[in-house]
């Protein structure tokens, strides 16, 4: 664990990423306490520029709603969507990949063709179609994002399992009389964990971007203030009130960037042999 931190913190970008993400998480947690009012509530005249009113630090939007409150509440939505949809995607992708890799042969063929079926459809288009069918609620947004983002997980896990299942310790476990489930759960998956963790951190970033894009198009949950929705709503006034698109855009950029940096740091820390510099 100590080594893990040493290698992780050696990557300076990763530490910065962790710092930004911590800020975002704190914002999301504290939002209901600092801004107890609904972010949908109109509080001032519309188009109030930032830093003109100390009570409304980042000004108001086209309907006079508090921008900073929207950003803070949006952080919660983005993180929730990112985390939950990644967990769901892992829950679909890991078992499929593990079964395909472990049993190989026909099971592998069947499961991988199924995976490719999802991979051949552009993920964003599929997410739009799914949301057009479902009701646009937060739960369905999460489900739609999970459904389009599990195939890479399955492929990665399959590859890892394929190479791990021929290792001698797995053969030894077979000879010790362990069942397939035990071998997969106790011997193979724990060893496949590092790349899965790295991929998962990048998937959270992907999911946040997808959610923002969907909200931008108006396919998000209409009752929830999210960064994507804010950009979408400010799109028409970008020439007169550019900050209304710019601020939530920066929020998305920084959060996604921080997750990517963390992913890279995790990669360095978990795969020390691939690290470019050891000293």
């Amino acid at each position: 664990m100590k080594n893990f931190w040493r290698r992780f913190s050696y990557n300076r970008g990763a530490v910065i990423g962790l710092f930004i993400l911590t800020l975002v998480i704190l914002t999301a947690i504290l939002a209901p306490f600092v801004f107890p009012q609904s972010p949908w509530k109109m509080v001032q005249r519309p188009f109030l520029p930032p830093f003109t009113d100390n009570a409304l630090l980042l000004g108001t939007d086209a309907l006079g709603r508090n921008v900073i409150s929207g950003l803070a509440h949006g952080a919660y939505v983005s993180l929730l969507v990112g985390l939950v949809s990644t967990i769901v995607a892992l829950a679909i992708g890991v078992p499929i990949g593990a079964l395909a890799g472990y049993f190989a042969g026909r099971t592998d063929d069947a499961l991988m063709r199924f995976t490719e079926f999802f991979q051949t459809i552009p993920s964003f288009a599929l997410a739009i179609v799914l949301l057009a069918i479902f009701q646009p609620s937060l739960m369905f947004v999460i489900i739609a994002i999970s459904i389009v983002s599990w195939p890479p997980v399955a492929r990665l896990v399959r590859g890892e399992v394929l190479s791990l299942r021929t290792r001698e310790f797995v053969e030894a476990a077979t000879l010790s009389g362990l069942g397939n489930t035990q071998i997969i759960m106790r011997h193979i998956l724990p060893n496949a964990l590092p790349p899965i963790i790295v991929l998962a951190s990048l998937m959270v970033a992907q999911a946040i971007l997808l959610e923002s894009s969907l909200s931008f198009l108006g396919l998000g949950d209409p009752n929830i203030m999210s960064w994507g929705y804010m950009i979408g709503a400010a799109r028409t006034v970008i020439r007169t009130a550019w900050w209304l698109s710019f601020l939530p855009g920066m929020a998305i950029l920084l959060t996604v960037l921080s997750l990517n940096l963390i992913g890279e740091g995790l990669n360095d820390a978990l795969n020390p042999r691939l690290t470019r510099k050891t000293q």
Partner: protein
Amino acid sequence: MTLLSIRDLAIALPVGADRIYAAQNINFDLAAGEILCIVGESGSGKSMSANAVMGLLPEGVKPVKGNITFDGREILGLSEAEMLPLRGGRISMIFQEPLSALNPLMRVGAQIAEVFEAHGALSKSERRDRALKLLEEVGIPDPQAAIRAYPFQLSGGQRQRVMIAMALALEPDILIADEPTTALDVTTQAQILKLIEDLRKSRGMAVIFITHDFGVVADIADRVIVMQKGEIVETGTADEVLLKPQHAYTRALIDAIPRLVQRVDTEADQGKPLLTVENLEKTFSTGAGSLFGKRRVVKAVQNVSFELFAGETIGIVGESGSGKSTVGRCIVRLLDPDAGRVLMDGVDISHLAGAELRDQRRKLQMIFQDPYSSLNPRARVSRILTEGLIAFGTSKDAAHAKACELLEMVGLDASAMKRFPHEFSGGQRQRIGIARALALDPSIIIADEAVSALDVSIQAQVLDLLAELKTRLNLSMLFITHDLRVAARICDRIIVMQKGKIVEAGPVSKVLHDPDSAYTRSLLDAIPGQEYERALALAEAEV
């Protein structure tokens, strides 16, 4: 004339490594036309010392003291640009694994020509001619075809010849060979050693030969340096070091060499055979024989039959690709045999499945080759040793107690239970692997190259342990190995395999000292250091 001289060299390891210096107090001279062997076990710093000469130390490892003088010029601390003409031009190097040392996507001829290109020598057509000549010189059959081949199309020995051809391209003064024959079969090894010896004679080239095998040293060395834990413990001419070793470590290494000594055959109690293998067959095929190329069929095991009696050790010996490991894997059913029967206590286990297979397999356990990949890096020793027992219904506490007992039996402390595999050395890991194989009280142990990855002194200890456990627990063993010397040490009977078939089988003394088949004869002849062994036996007899 001294060509290379190293004085007081110290190479520092990165902070946090298990010792401060990879090598220190290194002093030696190399004369033109001399073969200097650096011998030592893994981690002794022998490769690091040689890499320092080439300026090819891994990142974080730096020389901190001393001089390396080559041809009257200090080369330690030269810049990359100054090193380039030396590397390959004056000093060149060959490596252990020729497959990973060659670029898999480049034809052999292009790789040799590239050496000339890098040093700006010769015109394009001349380069090709020289490449062809070099391939001829290193004895590659059909150089015209080889020059157009990709590395994967050549055998291991041929690849090493290509590496040597590349190293010789610019007629270097020094050739550094880092374990060049370790990955090769014994017959191929003998050929490569002869080639290096011949080239040394014809070109007057000096050779630094790094190896862990004293047999190889005895065959090739003029002078020997023995290294231990980063320091030179003994240097001298080959005869001095090998026959009259001064340092205790050198003596220990020499004592640990497995020898082909005459053994008294122990008549095994020929009751009913414990394991009977009848007409075992296994064929591998690659590629479906589709649009892209023909289906390749390899008959890995053909018509193999033998019987294993209680308390007996049979050695299955052969070169790589002889099918010896496949036989072992088919018996324990890690692979499914295509035909034939494997009878254990009268039950044919070659077609069992599910619970029946699981119950029968309990009596048949395996020890694997690689002590690093055969233990799950994320499981503690306690779990590694107990999970098989628990899977067969032993209670947790009983399994734990049994595991502690097993650890003691293989010479480890019970405190090892709480540790992870990476905290142990290679030999200790192999002991854990043995304990795991014994956990289910098997009657037959299949050891697949179980000591091949270990240093010679550790190898001797593990072999002794296996022999002791075998008599104590009345086990039968199938010992698969490529090394006849190891087989001689532990086996009662030997089966020699070639290309999937049994070419000879019989008691150890017969197979090793009076073989019937020409193939066995050639394997025996290729064992390095045989003259030395006789000289050593003679010297010991005098004492």
